[in-house]
C-alpha cells in the first residue's frame, strides 16, 4: 500500500516569498491533516479536511496560510508571504478514521 506522499522534502525561501506544499494521501482516506512542527515541539494541527470540506482550521494563520483539497484527494498548503517564524517541518497525514493516522515524511521549510 502506498503511503502518504509529500513534496518537496526541503525548501529554502527568503522571508516575504511564497511557498506551496503538496500532499497526496492514501487512497480512500477521507480525513487529511496538515500539521506544523517547530523544532523541539510536538506537531500543531493547522487544518483538518473531511473529504473536501474543512473540519477544523482554528489554528491556521489565515492572513498568510491557505489550504485546499480539491476533489477530496490531493491537498496543497500555501504560505504567502512567509515569515522567519514559519520555519518548521510541515507534516501531512491521512486516515480512514482518526484511528491510526498515517503520516508523510514532511516538508522541511527554512525561511531566511
Amino acid at each position, binding site marked *: 500500500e502506498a503511503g*502518504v506522499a509529500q513534496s518537496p522534502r526541503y525548501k529554502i525561501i527568503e522571508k516575504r516569498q511564497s511557498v506551496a506544499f503538496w500532499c497526496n494521501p492514501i487512497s480512500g482516506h477521507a*480525513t487529511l*491533516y496538515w*500539521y506544523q512542527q517547530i523544532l523541539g*515541539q*510536538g*506537531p*500543531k*494541527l493547522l487544518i*483538518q479536511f*473531511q473529504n473536501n470540506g474543512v*473540519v*477544523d482550521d482554528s489554528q491556521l494563520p489565515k492572513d498568510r496560510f491557505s489550504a485546499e483539497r480539491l476533489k477530496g484527494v490531493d491537498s496543497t498548503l500555501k504560505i504567502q508571504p512567509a515569515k522567519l517564524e514559519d520555519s518548521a*517541518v510541515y*507534516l501531512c*497525514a491521512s*486516515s480512514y*478514521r*482518526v*484511528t*491510526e*493516522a*498515517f*503520516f*508523510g*515524511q*514532511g516538508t*522541511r521549510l527554512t525561511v531566511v
Partner: protein
Amino acid sequence: SQELEQSPQSLIVQEGKNLTINCTSSKTLYGLYWYKQKYGEGLIFLMMLQKGGEEKSHEKITAKLDEKKQQSSLHITASQPSHAGIYLCGAEWGAQKLVFGQGTRLTINP
C-alpha cells in the same frame, strides 16, 4: 495551557534499562495514540488505546490508559538503540481531531 502534557521532555537511559513516558490529558479522552518519530522524519504509529484500563503491547513496548481515560503511560522494557527517537502521544477528544503533546526525546546510551 497545554491540554496534553508529556513527561519527561527528554530522557537518557543506558541500553538494557527500562523506562516510562507519561501523557496526561486535561479532559477525558475518546482515544489516545502513541507515535514515534525519528529526527527529520514523519510519525510512525505505535498503538491506540480507547477503553479505560486498556493495555496493549508490541514487542518490548507496552502502553496503558488509566480507568478515567485521562492519563497514559508508555513503558519500554530492556531498551535498545533502535528505541531512540521522539515519542509523541496524540489525543482525540471529539470531532475526529488529533492533537499531540510536545513529545519526549529518548536517547539510549550504549
